[in-house]
């Protein structure tokens, strides 16, 4: 499914969606390294389903229209997932 949904979409949208999953804590940042990407297709699909669940969308695990649409909506920059607190590294103002 994941490969199919990726081929349907242009690479810019895929790139945007994958950055979204990383930015908001659904996928660890190092998953973006191309060498590993294929090995982790399953984790992308799983991460996508997790993001869809968090946002009240059908958990297809695919880059479908509803998912891309909600990814484009203005939102808070804080991550959704507790584990990856990208904006909490700093302590000093």
């Amino acid at each position, binding site marked *: 499914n994941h490969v199919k949904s990726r081929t349907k979409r242009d690479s810019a949208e895929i790139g945007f969606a994958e950055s979204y999953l990383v930015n*908001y804590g659904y996928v660890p940042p190092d998953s973006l390294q191309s060498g590993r990407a294929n090995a982790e297709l399953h984790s992308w699909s799983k991460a996508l389903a997790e993001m869809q*669940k*968090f*946002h*009240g969308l059908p958990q297809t695990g695919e880059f479908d229209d509803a998912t891309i649409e*909600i990814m*484009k*909506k*203005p*939102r*808070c*920059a*804080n*991550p*959704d997932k*507790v584990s990856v*607190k*990208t*904006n*909490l*590294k*700093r*302590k*000093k*103002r």
Partner: protein
Amino acid sequence: YVTVGSPWQKQLITYSINNFTPKLGKKLTHEAIDNAFKVWSSFVPLQFDKVDASQNPDIVTFFAEGFHNDNTNFDGVGGYLAHAFYPGSGIGGDTHFDGAEPWTLHQGPNKGNDLFLVAVHELGHALGLQHSPDVKAIMAPVYKYHDTKNFVLPQDDILGIQSLYGNFWFKLFDSTKPPRRPAATQPTISSIPEPSPPKLCELSNYDAISFLRKELYIFKGKYMWRRKRGKTSFSGPLMISSFWPQLKNGVDAVYENPTSNKIVFFKDHLFWEFRGTELLPQSPRHVRHIGMQNGKVDAAVWWQRNGKTYFFKGNCGYYWRYGVGRVEEDYPRSISVWNGAPANVDAAFSGVDGSHNFTYFVKGNKYWVFNNWEIKTVKTSLSFVDDWLKC
């Protein structure tokens, strides 16, 4: 809701608004952010004092664009609207808004991003809430318009913030007394300290009493106490608003109709219908919608025997019978029909241990027992405190 493990460990939290968005100007920017703080402080015992940025406040708020000295650059219109750091020293609690966004205030949906709404969300982070998967919650990650003129903090957010600070209060301070307010560095809006939550055993009267989902609830002021099934003691006080956020100012009467699966609260001239804690459409409505010309129902009780609900108005000693949708024609009648029951009753309930053979009338801290089948009072003026509260 999702919380962080470490909320603020104090009750007085200072903040500064270091600049403003020219799209709203300074006054509206401050109004939006000040009111956002007030939303949270109306549900938890936190006090927010605005100070100058030079006083090293706990929460610094400002507008910026692009890179702004932390590790999350803003990205122009859309995308990131703002972000906030969770409670802690230094940058902890700080809240940054993307100056490039089309900031508006009270302009309704589809008109830019309402600064008040985004500020409520971001300050939720600054107080220790993470994003919530409840799409109705203000802590949902994607911007969504909520009515800002009559803003009601969604239930999920109330439960979240009270899970951080409601216990914090009782844990940190003697639960019978509110924390002593520190000398305010500048006159606060209302320097009258919050009255301490009442002690159930010391109450001389009650606003409303009812079995709800087979648990006995007692309501007084903004607080309620709950006796779970099979228990003899009550838990509480809890804020009524922690279950029913629309009722943060208290209730006059309440009843549950198990057949329609509705819980109905009365306050002044309005009534609210809930399914559990979910507010049903059209609520609140004026009591004249159910045929009661003027307001303030003092007590309400549903009868399983005939499926009717009875409303009592204390000071005039009348009662109404309510069928489907409105009170019945030849009502009100004098409460003397309930011979032996007290005239200006404070509360009434039935359904003790699931049976509806008796109606209990409560006035002050006394109660009367009315037999629903013999249509007469069988016990009078007993001590509610001794028999029900086990004080």
